[in-house]
């Protein structure tokens, strides 16, 4: 019987870790998402012409409070608030945790790894906010200075932040943090195996 390939063994270890990691992430999401939300608040404020007055949390739901004036059909005016679900941008955290816990001594990299994800998560949240302002129409977008190239860049930023970064960031972070073991797995083992075969 041939021993199971090291990559497959790693894959099975990740699969074993993924369910508990997702459960833990969901359980602590209301707190875990906060650093990304704070960074996103700063990013969104700078990007959207200083229109972000603050953020509020309700469970794991994040609300951006803005200085943007909106008018209802009946003529009443108010300030716009925008809801964002941060979980859509932070689900890479349990994937990274599972990858690290399945790697040799990877648990030691858990905290720096999760910290590495924060800017990418914040990007997703901030551009979700910007995309919602664009979807709300030109009257809203212009108050946030999201016109011209900034509107185009916001759309691209949103697509990157929602489709690419949430899945790409954890894997890139894992490969970067585990570059030593990764090199050993891919290079040294091949060399060792060949040496053993030639002996």
């Amino acid at each position: 019987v041939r021993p199971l390939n090291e990559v497959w063994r790693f894959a099975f270890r990740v699969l074993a870790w993924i369910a508990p990691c997702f459960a833990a992430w969901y359980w602590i999401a209301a707190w875990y998402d906060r650093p990304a939300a704070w960074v996103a608040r700063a990013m969104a404020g700078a990007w959207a012409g200083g229109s972000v007055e603050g953020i509020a949390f309700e469970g794991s739901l994040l609300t951006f409070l803005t200085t943007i004036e909106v008018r209802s059909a009946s003529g009443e005016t108010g300030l716009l608030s925008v809801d964002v679900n941060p979980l859509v941008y932070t689900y890479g955290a349990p994937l990274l945790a599972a990858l690290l816990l399945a790697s040799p001594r990877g648990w030691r990299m858990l905290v720096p790894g999760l910290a590495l994800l924060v800017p990418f998560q914040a990007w997703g949240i901030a551009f979700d906010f910007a995309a919602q302002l664009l979807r709300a129409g030109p009257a809203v977008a212009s108050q946030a200075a999201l016109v011209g190239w900034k509107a185009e860049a916001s759309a691209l930023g949103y697509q990157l932040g929602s489709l690419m970064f949430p899945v790409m960031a954890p894997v890139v972070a894992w490969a970067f943090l585990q570059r030593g073991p990764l090199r050993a797995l891919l290079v040294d083992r091949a060399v060792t195996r060949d040496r053993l075969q030639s002996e």
Partner: protein
Amino acid sequence: MVRFFLTFLAIGIALFALELTPVVQKLLVLPWTELLARTSVALIKVFDAEVVSFGKVLESTRNGFAVSIEAGCNGVEAALILIAAMLAFPSPWKRKLAGIAGGLFAVQALNVVRVVSLFYLGQWSLTAFEWAHLYLWQALIMLDVLIVWLLWLQWLRSGESSRAPA
């Protein structure tokens, strides 16, 4: 290693920007997504005749539940990440192309499983559907990409070491 990461990011973002252009959406992404819907329905029909597809939508004729395969669920972004990783890693073109072909098949095969599973999960529980759709399956598809890439790297290395002079 740093050069690989930077090349990977540059190729990945360039491919993604290209994917977003209207011409690529019209000529490649939409037809691909519709093919994915038809493939999923063909597979489902093996055990459940009460399903139809139109465009990128799968619908149950039994209860009217329908899912539309949107960006992020058609496996295109996962495929782009895999292509970028294989292109960025220094290797012979023949091995790159073989890896991309095999890898795309592995990613899309799992993606069909995702679409079919979500179609039934949604009929059972919308909460479970949302959870699996938004979070869990995204991570599993990315794990698939990573494992395919690692297996490809191993194959690459084994080829190199078997060619090395004794």
